């Protein structure tokens, strides 16, 4: 017995409707994730509570969105990405390829990114760009500083979580990476505090997904450090692109794989250039105002 059936034309990419539906599904899973909910709740509370009385520098408040939306967001998307691993024998033989599923997971980063934008607006409400707590930066550079500290980490952390989830099997990998990144930022910040005029230290300080640009001086005033906040945002966005491409690389085949690898090369070069520009631009020496 032979039946004749009509089969659809082969295609490697899912339809837009399917991709959108999948991205919405994954987004719903993220916003119900307890880790992410806790992060959002904490940030909301921190923003609602407003600035501490007598706050003389912005750096005491602005790491929170990076830690919670970025760091905890990374852990949430890492869990989200890994959650289907047990079902891979079933999920892996569906028409939606692994890179397409990864792309849908990456799309969920729009939620923490959007919340990061709201957090930035709230932050600027409490810490106006004209506030002396920003130091000697120009008004536009001040916006760049806080955007790079609040909005971009909120995007990059979750994207990094997806990339990590696609490539690393260790269940605690996201927590370990979070602690490593946090330790790195703390270390280079301390070193930068003791060597504010050092160019290599400035490069090390900027070689991260998050950095401080100013420090309250014990002698009074705020010291603005070396580096360009705008180019630093470019470097951060290049890192975001690298995270997405590394995530998409898992399971990619043929021409798609070739394109991803090529794009990775371009993003890597762009990241390097932007890091150099971030270190070379802005103030060439610390300025205390």
């Amino acid at each position, binding site marked *: 017995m032979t*039946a004749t059936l009509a089969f659809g034309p*082969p295609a*490697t990419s899912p339809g837009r409707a399917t991709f959108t539906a999948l991205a919405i599904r994954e987004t719903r899973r993220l916003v119900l994730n307890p880790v992410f909910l806790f992060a959002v709740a904490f940030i909301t509370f921190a923003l609602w509570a407003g600035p501490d009385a007598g706050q003389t520098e912005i750096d005491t408040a602005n790491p929170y969105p990076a830690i919670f939306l970025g760091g905890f967001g990374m852990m949430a998307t890492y869990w989200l990405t890994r959650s289907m691993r047990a*079902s891979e024998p*079933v999920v892996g*033989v569906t028409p*939606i390829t692994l890179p397409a599923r990864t792309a849908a997971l990456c799309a969920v980063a729009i939620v923490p990114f959007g919340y990061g934008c709201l957090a930035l607006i709230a932050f600027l409400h409490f810490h106006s760009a004209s506030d002396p707590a920003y130091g000697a930066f120009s008004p536009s550079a001040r916006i760049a500083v806080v955007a790079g500290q609040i909005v971009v980490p909120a995007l990059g952390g979750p994207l990094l979580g997806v990339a990590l989830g696609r490539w690393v099997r260790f269940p605690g990998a996201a927590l370990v990476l979070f602690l490593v990144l946090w330790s790195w930022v703390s270390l280079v910040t301390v070193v930068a505090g003791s060597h504010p005029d050092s160019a290599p230290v400035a490069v090390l300080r900027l070689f991260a997904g998050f950095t401080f640009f100013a420090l309250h001086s014990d002698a009074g005033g705020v010291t603005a450090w070396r580096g360009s906040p705008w180019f630093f945002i470019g470097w951060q966005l290049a890192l975001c692109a690298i995270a997405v491409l590394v995530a998409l690389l898992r399971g990619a085949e*043929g021409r*798609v794989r070739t394109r991803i690898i090529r794009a990775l090369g371009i993003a890597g070069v762009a990241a390097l250039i932007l890091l150099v520009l971030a270190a070379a631009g802005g103030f060439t020496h610390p300025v205390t105002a």
Partner: protein
Amino acid sequence: MVTASISLRGVGRTFGATRALAGVDLDLKPGVTGLLGPNGAGKTTLLRLLATALPPSQGQVSVLGLDPEVPAERTGIRRHLGYQPQETGFPRGFTAFAFVDYIALLKEQSQPAARHAEVRRVLDLVGLGGLGAKRIRAMSGGQRRRVSLAQALLGSPAVLILDEPTTGVDPEQRVVLRAVLAELARTSVVVLSTHQTEDVAALCERVIVLDRGRVRYDGPVTELTGQAAGRVWLADEPDPAAKVSWRTGTGRYRNVGGRVRDDVEHVEPSLEDAYLLLRGGSPEHEPAQEVAS
């Protein structure tokens, strides 16, 4: 227009130094084909090859006239494929409905109303219609098995690959499952691997017996069963001449194979008898072959 068929030519698969499949030639058409064989015979490897989950080390596989080695054609196959693996893990916190719905979404059923109706249909088919809201982690092993089967039935696929679908499933559900598969097999290629010979006897038109990665038998179930005719008998004691003997529920011994005597009570052979005879009366596990170096 493509015929619902599967073709394998000289297919082999190795895992390191272990040869799981060797020189397999098969043509599968709509209908239910049973896959029998001892543990380690290569059944799961063959099913994974058919389900596009694994590429062959040698030979060519064609499913629905498409080549699974070509990414675009593999996607084309997967659009018409249902696969229930031997073991399915489930994500934490998912209900049966949510899991099957998620898989339906991955099977490109993007319209929510139609997708939900299809999810309800397949859950009803496997007898889980009333348990859609139950968390999978809270379900019994048999119920989880049926959730895994439900996702494979989504969209009434042209190719349905089932790896031990009835393991842990109660007798009533097995009967229901047979009816579902028999109906689907009118137009679809259904391949099921099982250790339950009664399922194969009740459902399959064709049976393939694998042994150490090779096809030992490929033909109608009735023909295989017929090979045991006159070689199965009952006796009050286990017959030393038989290859296999066991005490039945009546207290008498069922003897299979070996030297047949005239002074015994012959009985109708079952597929299990024929399978045991084919295996040389050795139901024990035989490890997969090592690849000759």
